[in-house]
């Protein structure tokens, strides 16, 4: 029993990272209808910045986290202005290619700036674990879980109780109608990308201690974050986080009870099955209205 619980905990630990990335992807898709393939490299840059502040400059961890998150927001804003806004209204393929180009540019810039070496970023919770009835949980993952909950609540509050959030929801529902109501698409798009960039950046900083800050360290999480977003139908923030947790648990259980070879194909198989069974997302309650 303890073993199964430990496997579930390990799966949830992984799943949280997928959910956070998925959440960032959903935010962008809802407003720009773009799939941000540069999310992983943007998150990694935030990790490097946090490393410089915390380790090289010996400043407190929170200062490094704020700096890295702010850089993530800036990267999001710059990306939106330079690559996405000019393509607003363009086919999805154009937007995908634009973000792929951004991914390549950011990846190469990272390497030019910091080189290929691996860096150890300290954890905000220190090293160590919490043990509950024979099950151990890494303290860093507990921090990540709490931060995820705060982000989810904050984003939810923003979307339902602020003018910006209302504008973003209106924009996601019907861009044309939103513009007619005086909602500026540029502002909505920019804010969505900045918030998404900040969330992605914070993810990169939180996972830096676990994955080590190195070239491409967030890339393996990106595809799984994409799966999480698919499970949320690319419209539900909580659905993306829930999808990430589900994926993490399925991965963990499949390694033990099926085969480790299943784990790499699991995200893609889930995407395919989800799109076939529930195209609007497994965790999305939006109804599809049939045209008569």
């Amino acid at each position: 029993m303890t073993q199964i619980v430990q496997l579930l905990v390990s799966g949830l630990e992984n799943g949280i990272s997928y959910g956070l990335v998925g959440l960032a992807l959903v935010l962008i898709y809802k407003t720009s209808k773009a799939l941000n393939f540069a999310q992983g490299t943007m998150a990694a840059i935030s990790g490097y910045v946090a490393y410089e502040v915390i380790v090289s400059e010996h400043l407190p961890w929170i200062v490094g986290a704020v700096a890295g998150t702010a850089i993530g927001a800036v990267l999001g804003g710059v990306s939106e202005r330079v690559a996405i806004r000019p393509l607003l209204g363009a086919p999805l393929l154009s937007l995908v290619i634009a973000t792929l180009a951004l991914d390549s540019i950011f990846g190469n810039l990272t390497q030019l700036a910091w080189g290929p070496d691996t860096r150890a970023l300290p954890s905000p919770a220190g090293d160590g674990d919490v043990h509950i009835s024979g099950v151990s949980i890494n303290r860093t993952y507990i921090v990540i879980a709490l931060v995820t909950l705060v982000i989810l609540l904050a984003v939810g509050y923003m979307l339902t109780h602020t003018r910006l959030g209302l504008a973003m929801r209106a924009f996601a529902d019907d861009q044309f109608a939103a513009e007619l109501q005086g909602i500026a698409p540029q502002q909505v798009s920019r804010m969505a990308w900045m918030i998404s960039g900040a969330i992605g950046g914070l993810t990169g900083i939180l996972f830096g201690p676990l994955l080590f800050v190195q070239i491409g360290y967030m890339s393996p999480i990106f595809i799984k974050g994409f799966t999480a977003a698919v499970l949320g139908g690319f419209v539900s923030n909580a659905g993306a986080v829930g999808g990430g947790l589900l994926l993490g648990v399925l991965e963990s259980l499949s390694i033990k009870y099926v085969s480790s070879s299943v784990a790499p194909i699991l995200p893609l198989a889930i995407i395919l099955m989800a799109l076939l069974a529930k195209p609007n997302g497994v965790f999305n309650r939006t109804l599809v209205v049939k045209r008569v």
Partner: protein
Amino acid sequence: MKHLRGIGFAAVGITLAAGLAACGGSSASGASASGGAPGVTKDTITFGMATPLSGPASSLGTDGQKGAEVFIKWLNAKGGTKGHKWALTVQDSHFTAQGHVAASKYLIQQKNVFATWGDVGSTALAALGTYNTAKVPFLFPYALAPQMTDPGPDVFTIVPPSNIQEAAFSNWAATSVTGTHKFGVLALDSADGHGAADGFKSGAAGKYVVASAFYPTGTTNWEPQLVSLRSKGITDLVLHGSDSWMATILKELQQLGMGKVHMWGSTGTVTPLVFKLAGDNLVNGQNAVSITAPSTDSDVPGVKEFLDAFAKYEPGYKPGTFALHSWVGGVIIEKAIEGISGPITRDNLIKSLESMSSVDTKGITAPLTFSSSQHLGNRSVVVVTATDGAWKPSTEFLTSSS
């Protein structure tokens, strides 16, 4: 207008044919300026290297590149070989099969290099055919796949495949452990990972193996595999992986209450980085297998010479395993070229390599022997132990009979 269109098509066709002829050439079309072998002028021999310079494996490729560059500077300062200085041109393989093939073709067809040297990564396997077809010597790639035991007529290697390394490691492990031991194997789900697992099981300690677990590329959390192995009550963990993965796994072992499990790491873990990432406390006392002496062990004459060269030509850079591998590759190539009687050509280089026996690398590796039927010059490994924040050899070089 039709005849003009026809002339146009003919012009395009001629241009394409000329282009294809230029691209498809091998050594025959790559004559050097002096009319000698490709890549050889009257005073310079040009080598190529296709290695990952970008992406997640860039630290390995960059380390290997620096090892070759420092060797060349060191050698050129001594006057080079047979009156020839060496030059190196490097291409990024992106650590993908397609990238490695493309980079290799570029080096062969566009740069007309004499030979390539020191490529990092089993993606080099994809380029074996390219080198054998073009008859360009492909020297000392760092690739662990089992196929490298018989790499081809123009390919030479000193890296025993993972199955051979782990078999030797297993034989030694069986003599060094006392009492009851249960070994678990944790390996990358790849050709060399499975080779490593099979190799260890084929050795004397194979009888102690109670479970194996594999992980795919891109794994960031090994807890599921470790929990699975923990259920078998393992006391020892044979790991096939990289230095940063070993660091993470050591921490996860602590977290899961498996801190007393003894680690037996593979070649890729024998770097200074694992101490930096995991901390000396977690790494000290663990064992690993290596094909060379540790890159930081200045008690070994060859490694001291290597470290002194780096201090002179790349001060501040801490060279690792791949730099040392490139360096010793350079040592072998230098001896091979010195052993050529006649002009420096690719065929003569290969003949010279094939005649080399018990090559002394000043302790960096075991003595190396090549022949016309055996282009894998090294079947020996050394077992190292993490001691006071550094890897130190615990054995002489051990030869596997696999």
